[in-house]
């Protein structure tokens, strides 16, 4: 009997230990509903979290009373947490501000419209690049305060180009056809492939079609637009040409992606400007890189600018939202100096147009042979055509990954896209 008693004691002790350990949590829980405290969720400690810390610092110098809790979670974790909380209708534990990737934003805004606090009128939308404002709005109402741009560029190895007899000038404002021709020559001269891609990630297609103002869905954001999407068809053809000419190197994960260009295996990298720190990580390649405008789609209305990724800030409709709006609009919404710090300290390029006039944006980067890449990227960002990303970007892309493999294996393009269209329509309804 004594043993039993001892056991019960141990159990109680354990439970007590747990609940006492957790009481800290509940206090801060109550705290987030407190008038002078807000909580923000974001991912990426070297990028978004650092930007938040700079914003917090800038805000605190004028508004010392508000306590800003910055909580770091991985992006997939934030998506999971938000989906669970919002679909169970429990707002407990939700933050005041959350960072959401632009491609996913509408799936949250349209599925849980009452859970987000509209920001219409609290900041000047015309001060932000237009494609970004479109991505963060639903039915004319602004829900998100735009943050970083995923403006794409073509990072090129000038030393490889020189071996094939090209200079950076030859690559300004080219289209994909010209890019492939250059790629063939570079491969002949150096033996290096042109670019590297993950076959399960069709980011390259997204950048191609957005440069022509198209997306996987029509402007309404819901009508699937695959079978008769000329831009998408052309992008498929270009992708196949890159593969058929053995210009495309395939990697299987992020790790390998970094290793491929850090190891000098490819002549160019075409992706969003957020890759800059990873390219610069290999210091021995300093001076060997340059960035030129993203290739356009040949033979159709398309610009030499596109976008890949990027995220924005959203305010949840929970107590403390007024403070959250105030924090966002006074920092990310209007502070030009703050945006200079984002560039110099993090390498983050915002979408706030007045910021581009600042000094930091014009700084020359020796790694890229003295090019002012930040100012170039923000110039290109303004040219990015705006599209409605809709709610299902990643779901449609899963279908297209299979379609692409079928097409590469030799099936007819029209048939492949028609099937993808049908599959998407049944799956997403």
């Amino acid at each position, binding site marked *: 009997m004594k043993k039993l008693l001892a056991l019960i004691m141990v159990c109680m002790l354990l439970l007590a230990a*747990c*609940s006492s350990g957790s*009481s800290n949590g509940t206090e801060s829980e109550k705290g987030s509903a407190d008038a002078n405290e807000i909580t923000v969720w974001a991912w*990426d400690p070297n990028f978004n979290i650092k930007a938040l810390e700079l914003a917090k610092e800038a805000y605190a110098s004028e508004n010392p009373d508000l306590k800003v809790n910055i909580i770091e979670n991985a992006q997939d974790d934030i998506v999971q947490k938000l989906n669970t909380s919002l679909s169970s*209708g429990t707002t407990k534990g939700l933050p005041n501000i959350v960072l959401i990737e632009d491609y996913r934003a509408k799936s949250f805004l349209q599925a849980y419209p009452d859970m987000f606090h509209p920001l219409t009128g609290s900041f000047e939308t015309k001060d932000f690049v237009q494609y970004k404002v479109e991505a963060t709005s639903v039915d004319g109402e602004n829900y998100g305060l735009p943050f970083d741009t995923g403006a794409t560029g073509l990072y090129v190895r000038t030393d490889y180009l020189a071996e094939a007899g090209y200079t950076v000038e030859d690559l300004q404002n080219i289209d994909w056809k010209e890019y492939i021709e250059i790629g063939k020559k570079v491969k002949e001269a150096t033996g290096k492939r042109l670019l590297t891609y993950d076959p399960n990630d069709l980011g390259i297609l997204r950048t191609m079609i957005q440069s022509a103002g198209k997306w996987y869905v029509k402007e309404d954001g819901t009508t699937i637009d695959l079978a008769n999407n000329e831009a998408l068809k052309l992008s498929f053809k270009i992708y196949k040409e890159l593969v058929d000419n053995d210009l495309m190197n395939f990697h299987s994960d992020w790790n390998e992606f*970094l290793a491929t260009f850090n190891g000098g295996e490819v002549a160019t990298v075409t992706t969003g400007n957020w890759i800059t720190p990873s390219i610069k990580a290999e210091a021995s390649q300093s001076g060997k890189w340059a960035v030129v405008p993203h290739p356009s789609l040949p033979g159709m209305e398309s610009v030499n600018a596109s976008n890949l990724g990027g995220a924005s800030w959203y305010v949840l409709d929970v107590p403390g939202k007024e403070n959250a709006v105030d924090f966002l609009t006074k920092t990310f919404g209007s502070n030009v100096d703050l945006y200079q710090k984002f560039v110099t300290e993090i390498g983050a390029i915002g979408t706030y147009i007045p910021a581009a006039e600042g000094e930091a944006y014009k700084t020359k980067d020796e790694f890229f042979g003295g090019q002012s890449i930040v100012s170039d990227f923000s110039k290109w960002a303004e040219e990015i055509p705006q599209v409605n990303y809709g709610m299902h970007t990643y779901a449609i892309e899963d279908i297209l990954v299979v379609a692409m493999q079928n097409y590469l294996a030799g099936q007819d393009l029209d048939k492949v896209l028609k099937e993808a269209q049908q599959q998407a329509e049944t799956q997403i309804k």
Partner: protein
Amino acid sequence: MHKIKRTFIYSILSIFAIISIFPFIWMIVSATNKSVDVTKGRLLPGTHLVENFQNLLNTVDLVPALVNSAIITMATTVLSLIIASLAGYGFEIYRSKAKDVVFTILLVSMMIPFAALMIPLFRMFGTISQIAPGIGIDTLTSAMLPSITTAFLIFFFRQNTKMFPRELLEAGRIDGLTELGVFFRIFVPTMKTTYAAAAIITFMASWNNYLWPLVVLQSPENHTIPLLISNLGSSSSPDFGIIMTTIVIATLPTALIFFLLQRHFVAGMMGSVK
């Protein structure tokens, strides 16, 4: 002929052993290398273990996360062993007409994936939070409660109880032990191996549990080790040296528990098959 056969078997087994052990070696080797070397696929041990470890301590709160994981895991293991063994014992030893029906329902519940239960469960804890915030959302208790016992563990104990000699039970009763006395003084000591196996299973599951703690634990001070590792990889330029060092640290307790209880584990698992 016999020798050739043996050589053949051993070489096949060696290949499989290398394949299964390679990820571990790579993990440990990577923990001693710089991030850039990890991405390049370096397979030789480096000299950056201490540096990685210091960077790790500087970037994240490792110790609180370890403490949280330890509290949750130990409490879950102890409580679920007690509850599941009592339940499994009861199902096997005592007679009742409803027993088989209840047990079938229990087994069916094993087939429902956790992802399907998550939203209702979260709702439930949302309501609990209003009544008793101490065990509601964002507390260590809430991360622990849903896994405090599982249908599998009850099933496991019931299967093993089948081997328990009834004569011992009768002897205990004749000597004047109460029913609980029989359980704690005769059953528990006899079934040590089963408890060891169950402890390993529960410990590992709880230590590595990710999905539920992820949705229910919001404050960073409540984060567990798997959540911490997930955060480390969230950057677009992650430091793989640090990540690998953390994973090595996170693997140590499970490895330790496994090696300590290994002998019993094999015996316990064999028992459940018989």
